[in-house]
């Protein structure tokens, strides 16, 4: 049941809104529950042809030869489309908003970079005839060494997955190989912390598994336009991407979408529309291109697998004094949306907690795996999972109740966040209190009385002196000391330093580096290049 606690933050909310806080029926709900909603695949057009794709059987290989002669003679085949037939055979979704370079061909030409990459498209009278022709295409591969692990991909001498990004990392702002967050001196704080806990979190790719698989039907319309029924979640992204790949003005297309049979992020990449439209352009007939379930599972983009290392310094009283995070996003062979996920992840560090020293490096890494894409909170979900697991382990380490431990470290109004923005309208403490109440989880009185509007600001609003990476020697190897976590009461307790720690160096006089130093300034959005 929906319960709105209107007593909390009553003065900060306008209750004269027409929709928020009120029950409203979704406009497409009636159609869904009565089974009358019309999806893209409900359109059976006269003379419709079917497009199927020959996919790579190799994870990383040079294509020596593509032999389609037998497929051309196969019954019902109307057209065979190769990479050379695609007008602009290199694309990435976010390049439309000037973020990232075009790196993914619609049909592979000289090299395949993941198992399942499309190489040849076949347009035939029936799906069956298209499948039969697909089976007759012969491709001669020269296998290349492949890399499937994000950290292996960053090692010197690792195979280059995607020549657009020869270091196997996405390039931010045409300069940086990762997203950085620097706030205070995490290394110094870790050296003085009572406990240090480093953990590694590894996520799996997750398939969206929509009921309706990705697909599109494109049909020639009058005046040289094309009508496209599509399952896309991002209709205007899709229109622009097709216009770019097919090198025509975007008003050539009349896209009809809006009803999506489950998307969850798996239908933001324009995968089927460009080839369906190209098929319609080349044959003059309506063309339908729909993923089979296996294609959807194996070659449709999943949530990227993330690897996250978190190293926290915590005092005996439960205060977290430092947090160092290294995160690697497995983008697969092409960018799609993982580069943006890494930005979102960096924007989310160090979670909703006030930590005076934060150090974060987030990499978007290319490997010879299926390209990853958006999925429900991508970039944040995995990081939240890792951070909250870490919070439970830290609470255990200092013998605190995990709920109280969160309230203690939660950010409060007026605190300085690691991104150098003052925290406003924070409500984590209230959320934890309500969750504890609902779960009948006992909280001590002082934590019940805590409020996100009390005890914030002041010294917690100060931006600590932050050494820049160039001012200190780069560690040659990640000298990460690991404190193992086990379920016994904590025994790993560092002796307090004999001498008081050296006084913090005086804050440098408002460091304004002339060179654009990304991590040292405030967090930039996806439009970071425009900001400068």
């Amino acid at each position, binding site marked *: 049941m929906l319960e709105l606690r209107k007593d909390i933050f009553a003065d900060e909310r306008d209750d004269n809104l027409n929709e928020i806080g009120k029950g409203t029926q979704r406009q497409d709900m009636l159609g869904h529950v009565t089974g009358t909603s019309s999806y893209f695949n409900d359109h059976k057009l006269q003379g419709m042809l079917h497009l199927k794709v020959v996919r790579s059987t190799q994870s990383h290989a040079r294509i020596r030869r593509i032999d389609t002669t037998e497929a051309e003679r196969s019954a019902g085949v109307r057209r065979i489309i190769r990479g050379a037939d695609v007008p602009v055979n290199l694309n990435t979704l976010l390049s439309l908003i000037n973020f990232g370079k075009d790196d993914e061909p619609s049909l592979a030409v000289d090299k395949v970079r993941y198992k399942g990459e499309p190489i040849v498209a076949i347009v035939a009278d029936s799906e*069956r005839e298209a499948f039969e022709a*697909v089976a007759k295409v012969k491709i001669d591969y020269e296998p290349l060494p492949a890399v499937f692990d994000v950290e292996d991909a960053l090692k010197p001498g690792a195979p280059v997955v995607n020549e657009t990004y020869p270091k196997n990392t996405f390039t931010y702002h045409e300069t940086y190989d990762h997203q950085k967050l620097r706030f205070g001196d995490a290394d110094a704080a870790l050296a003085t912390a009572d406990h240090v806990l480093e953990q590694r979190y590894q996520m799996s790719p997750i398939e969206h598994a929509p009921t309706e698989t990705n697909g599109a039907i494109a049909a020639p319309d009058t005046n040289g336009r094309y009508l496209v029924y599509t399952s896309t979640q991002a209709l205007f992204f899709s229109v622009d991407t097709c216009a770019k790949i097919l090198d025509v003005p975007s008003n050539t297309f009349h896209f009809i979408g809006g009803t999506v049979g489950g998307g969850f992020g798996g239908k933001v990449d324009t995968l089927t529309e460009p080839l369906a439209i190209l098929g319609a352009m080349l044959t003059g007939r309506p063309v339908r291109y729909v993923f089979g*379930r296996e294609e959807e599972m194996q070659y449709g983009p999943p949530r990227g697998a993330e690897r996250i290392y978190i190293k926290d310094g915590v005092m005996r009283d439960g205060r977290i004094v430092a947090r160092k995070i290294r995160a690697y996003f497995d983008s697969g062979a092409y960018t799609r949306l993982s580069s943006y996920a890494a930005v979102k992840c960096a924007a989310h560090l160090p979670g909703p907690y006030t930590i005076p020293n934060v150090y974060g490096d987030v990499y978007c890494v290319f490997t010879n795996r299926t390209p990853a894409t958006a999925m429900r909170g991508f970039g944040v979900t995995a990081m939240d999972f890792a951070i909250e697991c870490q919070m439970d382990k830290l609470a255990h380490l200092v013998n605190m109740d995990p709920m109280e431990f969160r309230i203690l470290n939660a950010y409060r109004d007026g605190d300085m966040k690691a991104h150098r923005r003052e925290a406003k309208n924070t409500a984590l403490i209230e959320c934890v209190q309500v969750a504890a109440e609902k779960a009948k989880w006992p909280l001590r009185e002082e934590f019940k009385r805590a409020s996100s509007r009390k005890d914030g600001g002041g010294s917690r609003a100060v931006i600590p002196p932050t050494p820049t990476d160039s001012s200190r020697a780069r560690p040659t190897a990640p000298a990460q000391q690991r404190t193992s976590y086990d379920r016994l009461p904590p025994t790993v307790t560092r002796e307090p330093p004999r001498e008081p720690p050296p006084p913090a160096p005086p804050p440098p006089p408002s460091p304004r580096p002339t060179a654009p130093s990304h991590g040292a300034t405030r967090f930039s959005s996806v439009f970071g290049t425009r900001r400068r």
Partner: protein
Amino acid sequence: MAVTVKTFASASEAAGALSSDRTARYLGGGTLVMRALNEGDVSISTVVRAQDQALTRIDASAPRITLGAGVTFARVLAERDLAFLHAPARSIGGPAVRNMGTVGGNLFAPNPYGDFTVALLALDATVAVQGGFGSRDIPIEEFLQARERQAGTLVLSVSCTRPASSEAFRYRKIARIKPKGGSVMTLAAHLPISGGRIAGARIALGSMAPTQIRARAAERALEGRSLDAATIAAAASAAIEGTSPSDNALGSAWYRREVVGVHLRRLLSGQE
């Protein structure tokens, strides 16, 4: 070439059509064949069906029960006389799959499916097949070993012994998605007791080898002994022998080898 559907009135005609055409595949409940067709399996050009009543007959009154190959799992579940097969039948798919999926089709289901067959293997079933040269009965183990070469033969029915008591037959499916996921592993044990001792133990494992297999070492550890803690421990430690599991999304080969003994011990000691 389009797919041709041929429907016959009798099973023998269907068997004839199946054995004379290399691209023909028999359509039982369709959970395997229709999926293959929809995903573009071009090795199937002919779909053969039969409307023979014999294929859907259940003979559950005799000590040796016989299930027609076309009997669905929903029908097994509806039959009170087949109570010992309810747990394996219920472990397959959701209601929609159980309404369509058949006993005969399950014999051909690859890993991580084919759970009902594990139960049949533990019950020492025989499979009645009809090829181009007439019908014959094959022990299920022999049938499974030659499963890939069974194209051209039609399964008519499966028969197995009825366990003497509900204690004598045990079944457990280990799945990560409940209630209807593919199996990490499936275990079934038939333990007839004679004079306080196990006589004729049969342990069958699913997802522990390319096909369903018997855990013969575990059977030997049980044979002639009473089902006490020491016997169970011996059987559990022998469970891994002869298995060759593979990695899939549900579990790694290493994991399956690690836990097969644990699950067998739980199965034999009646732990939940």
